[in-house]
C-alpha cells in the first residue's frame, strides 16, 4: 500500500537500521561477552565453544547444505500437506455440526498425544526414509491450521450473515464471499505457528526415525561425539531457518491481507 511507495534508498536503509539495529547491537554484545567468558574461565570446547570456534566449524563442515536441505524439505513438505488438507477439514468442521461434534474431538485427542510418542510408530510404518519425517511435520502442523481456520470461518459478523440470508444468498455464496475472506487472517495466523512447528516436527522425526541425513540427525551425532561446535552450527541453522519461515509468511500476509493488518499498523 501507500507505505511502500516511492522511498529513497537512504530511507529504506534507515528503516532497516531502525528495525535490525537494536537486536544487532545486542548480538554483538552477547558474542563478545561469550568469547571473553570462554577464554577467561577456560571453558573447554566440548562444553561451551566460543563463537569463533563455532564460526570456524561452520566454514569447515562438509555436507551442511545437504543436511539443511533435507530438514527444510521435510518441514516444508509436512507443512504444505497440512496447509492443503487442514483448511478443507476446517471448512467441514465449520459448516457441518455433525463433523464438528463427531470428528473434531479426535483431532483434539490426536493433538494431545506428545509428538515424540508417535514418531517411532511412524518409523515402523513408513521406514527410514524421508516419509516418516514429513509425516511428523504434517501431524504437528495440522492442528493450528485446522483450529485457526475453523475459528476464522465461523467468526463473520452475524449481522452480515443475516443480511446475506435476507438477500437469499446460497450457503456456498456466503461461504465464498463472507466466510473465506473473513478467515484469511486467521489462516495466516495458523500458518505462522505451523511453520515454526514444522521444523520441530522434522527434527523430532530425524531424532527417532533413523536415517543419516538432516540437521536433527547431525545434532544426535555431534552430541554423541562431543563435537559441540558443530552442534551449535546445526542449532543456529535451525534458528535462522525458523525466523526465515516466519518472515516469509509475514511478507505474504502483508501483501495479501493488508486490510486486516491495517489496524495494527495504524497504532504505531
Amino acid at each position, binding site marked *: 500500500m501507500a507505505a511502500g511507495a516511492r522511498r529513497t534508498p537512504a530511507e529504506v536503509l534507515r528503516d532497516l537500521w531502525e528495525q535490525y539495529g537494536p537486536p544487532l547491537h545486542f548480538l554483538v554484545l552477547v558474542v563478545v561477552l561469550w568469547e571473553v567468558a570462554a577464554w577467561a574461565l577456560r571453558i573447554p570446547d566440548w562444553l561451551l565453544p566460543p563463537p569463533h570456534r563455532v564460526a570456524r566449524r561452520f566454514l569447515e563442515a562438509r555436507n551442511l547444505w545437504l543436511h539443511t536441505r533435507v530438514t527444510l524439505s521435510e518441514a516444508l513438505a509436512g507443512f504444505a500437506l497440512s496447509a492443503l488438507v487442514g483448511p478443507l477439514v476446517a471448512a467441514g468442521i465449520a459448516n457441518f455440526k455433525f463433523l464438528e461434534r463427531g470428528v473434531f474431538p479426535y483431532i483434539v485427542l490426536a493433538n494431545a498425544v506428545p509428538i515424540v510418542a508417535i514418531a517411532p510408530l511412524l518409523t515402523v510404518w513408513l521406514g527410514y526414509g524421508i516419509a516418516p519425517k514429513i509425516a511428523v511435520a504434517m501431524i504437528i502442523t495440522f492442528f493450528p491450521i485446522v483450529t485457526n481456520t475453523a475459528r476464522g470461518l465461523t467468526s463473520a*459478523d452475524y*449481522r*452480515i450473515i*443475516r*443480511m*446475506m*440470508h*435476507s*438477500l*437469499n*444468498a446460497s450457503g456456498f*455464496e456466503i461461504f465464498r*464471499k*463472507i466466510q473465506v*475472506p473473513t478467515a*484469511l487472517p486467521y489462516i495466516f495466523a495458523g500458518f505462522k505457528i505451523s511453520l515454526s512447528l514444522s521444523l520441530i516436527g522434522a527434527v523430532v522425526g530425524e531424532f527417532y526415525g533413523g536415517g543419516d541425513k538432516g540437521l536433527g540427525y547431525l545434532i544426535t551425532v555431534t552430541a554423541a561425539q562431543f563435537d559441540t561446535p558443530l552442534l551449535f552450527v546445526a542449532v543456529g541453522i535451525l534458528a535462522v531457518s525458523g525466523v526465515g519461515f516466519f518472515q516469509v509468511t509475514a511478507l505474504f500476509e502483508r501483501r495479501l*491481507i493488508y*486490510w*486486516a493488518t*491495517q*489496524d495494527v499498523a*495504524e497504532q504505531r
Partner: protein
Amino acid sequence: MEKAGISLRNVGLTYRPRGKEPFEALRDITLDIRDREMFAIVGPTGCGKTSLLLLLSGILTPTTGEIAIRGGPVAEARARTEFGFIFQDPVLLPWRTVLGNVRLPLEVTKYDKARRDARCQELLAFVHLERFADAMPHELSGGMKQRVAIVRALAHNPSMILMDEPFAALDEITKRRLHLEFLEVWQREQKTAVLITHDLYEAIFLADRVAVMTPNPGRIKEVLPVDLSRPRTLEMRESEAFVRRARAVRQILEG
C-alpha cells in the same frame, strides 16, 4: 383491493431458551405501517425493539398473532428480497472497496451485471462519496462508513429498509448531518422505513409517526403522528411543534 404496508395483529413473542425460564419479549403488538412511510419505534433498551425488527424481517416468527406484508406472509416478501438492513455499526467487508461493499447485494440478487457499477456510483453520489468508490473501508471515517452502509441497504432496491439504531454510534454533529442526508436519500428512493432508536429527538425529526414502546414485556404504548412538514430542516428541531411532540413522547416513556 391489494393491501398495502406492513400490518401486525396481536403479535407476541416469547423466547424459550433451553433449561431457562421462558421470557416474554413482546406482547399484543398491533400496528399498521404504511407504504413509503418513515415509521420510528422508540423505547428504552431491553423493550424488545430489536426483536420486533427481527419479526418484521422474518428472521424470527411470532409466537402469537400475525404479520402481513402487502397482505402476504413475511416469508414471501423475504423471498422477493424486499428488505434492506442498516445496523448500528457499518459492518462493511474490510477486504472490499467502498464500491465493492455497495455492490454486494447486487451480486447476490443477480442484478443486471452491466448496470451494477453504475447503480453503485449513483447511490454513492447521493451520500457524496462518489470520489471514495475505490477507497477501502479503513480509510473512511465512522460517518462515511455509515453512509456506505446506508446506500448498501438500498442497492438492490428493496421496498423496506429496516434500521436498528443506525445513528447511535455517531457523534452528535455527524449524526445530524447524516439525518439530513438519509432523509434526502429516503425521499428520492421512496422506501418504507422502520427506524428503531432510543433517541426520541431523532425519531421525531425523521419519522412520520413514532411508536413508543415500554418494556417487560415489550408493548406499544402509543403511536403519535409527527406534524412537521417535509423536507425537514435542522431549524425544525427548535420549533414549538417539535418540542411539544418531544415532550409528549418523553412523558409516555416516563410513564
